[in-house]
């Protein structure tokens, strides 16, 4: 990615890019998958520096959805319907329409995954990296009384800095974790639900499942 583009994206995220340039940047990003990928790498710089890439459910989920939909058979649909709808009293507040729909898709994917690959689920073989989520030992419990520093809008911050994870991972089937995440995503959130939603809106141009990270923190 060229420096001018990087500067444009940086300025955009800082709210400092003029409207005319914003429009141009947006058009370019929507047209140019390579540029988006480049931006993704750019945003990952902070993570790479810290060696903190943790588990990534999202792409794996995305692939699962696609696989499931591809192989869906009518016979499976009633079974899906039987498990896809939370009870009405579970209904959350604002924002949950997305989660509900996302949950449906997730259940479609997961149920279908079970239906079409029973031998995988019953196998003694280790869960493949592509279908597993990294588990790591939790960091020590922080002191609850420690006051966090104030967020200073004048300080430069990385665009997306994930929390630090460390040590040896354990494998957990992504399908199982996905169920928990989607069940939880019915609850109010300003951004978290969109993390899930975004993955379902993403196109099929990238079906690569990222490797499960085993990096250690510095």
């Amino acid at each position, binding site marked *: 990615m060229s420096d001018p583009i990087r500067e444009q994206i940086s300025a955009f995220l800082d709210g400092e890019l003029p409207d005319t340039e914003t429009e141009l940047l947006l058009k370019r990003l929507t047209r140019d998958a390579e540029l988006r990928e480049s931006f993704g790498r750019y945003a990952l710089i902070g993570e790479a520096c810290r060696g903190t890439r943790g588990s990534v459910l999202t792409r794996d989920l995305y692939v699962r959805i696609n696989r499931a939909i591809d192989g869906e058979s009518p016979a499976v649909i009633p079974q899906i319907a039987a498990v896809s709808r939370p009870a*009405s009293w579970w209904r959350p507040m*604002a924002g949950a329409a997305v989660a509900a729909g996302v949950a449906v898709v997730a259940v479609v994917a997961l149920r279908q995954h079970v239906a079409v690959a029973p031998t995988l689920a019953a196998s003694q073989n280790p869960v493949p990296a592509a279908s597993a989520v990294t588990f790591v030992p939790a960091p020590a419990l922080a002191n609850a009384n420690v006051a966090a520093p104030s967020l200073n809008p004048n300080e430069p911050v990385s665009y997306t800095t994930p929390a630090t994870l460390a040590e040896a991972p354990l494998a957990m089937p992504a399908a199982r974790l996905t169920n928990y995440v989607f069940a939880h995503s019915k609850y109010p959130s300003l951004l978290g639900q969109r993390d899930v939603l975004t993955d379902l809106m993403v196109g099929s141009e990238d079906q690569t499942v990222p490797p499960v990270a085993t990096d250690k923190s510095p």
Partner: protein
Amino acid sequence: MIPGVVRRSAWLLPGAVVGALLFAIPHPATAADDDPRAWLQRMNQALATRNYDGMFMHVSDGRIETMRIVHRVQAGRVTERLTSMDGSGREFIRSNDELTCYLPDKKTVLVEQTQERGPFLGTLPQFGAGVNEFYQIESLPNTRVLGRSARVISVTPKDQFRFGYRLWLDEKTAMPLKTQLCDARGNVLEQIVFARLETPDTIPDAELAPSVHTEGMRWVRLSPREALPVDSAGFRASELPPGFRLTVTGAQMLGGASLPATHLVYSDGLATVSVFVEAGTDAKGPDDKVDAAQAPMQGLARVGSGFVFSTVVQGHQVTAVGEVPAQTVEFIAHSVKPSAGSESTRR
């Protein structure tokens, strides 16, 4: 009401309803206009009740996705359309209680009846008085975003059991032009930034119609199911991080499971953590091999901007999930015990 079910408290009323009520109340220009909490309420109200049409970028986990949102409220009917601008052509359209997901790349349309009224863009909970004890909510100096004067609101956690937000709200409409989820050190975990946002008085039907041609696509319609009974005397968190309390108790059939899981929801008024408790099952498949999908688990995972921590308590799988720091899900999961006793809050 289902026996054993604890209804959500008043601040969990659907945002649209609350928003509509607030919308009906005139807001004279008073000192209260500078109250950041009032601004957050106005934002919720704007997201639920305004017409808007915009394009935004969602930056998370090292990725950027561009989407268009169109939201219309007309004669009490809410219709909204979310479209991926990055190539898939996928669209989600919600019209009151029906959500339709168009997946042209998979030649599939999913339709679900919903009862929610919440906007695609989500909202923050209606802050209860207790939120002030655990978050510092303040106005920061105004700035300009998208060429508009923006009110900057900071929601800073007072400890490391929760995340914070920074929001840039359009001074004129209270729409969130930019939203960031931050950790306790101020690092941005995730953000939404609008590149274009209009709030027209009217939005024509054509802007809310799917652009996807559905000929030859498979339609999957999903209908509601009955509520599951709740194990009201089951597991509960015996100790909680400051400010968290049980807000929902329920049961849910998770995919691939043969028994419903107890679903407990703990909230501090802003952050929410779900706890799932599943009865121990025989993790062996029909051929006596270990079923990886049901095997006991213990450990921590990061998912998006949140964390999942799973452990085994007296033969039950206990899993805590939330957009909170790792130590919060771990703390809560570790405190879950097979007792119906009330929780104590850590001080």
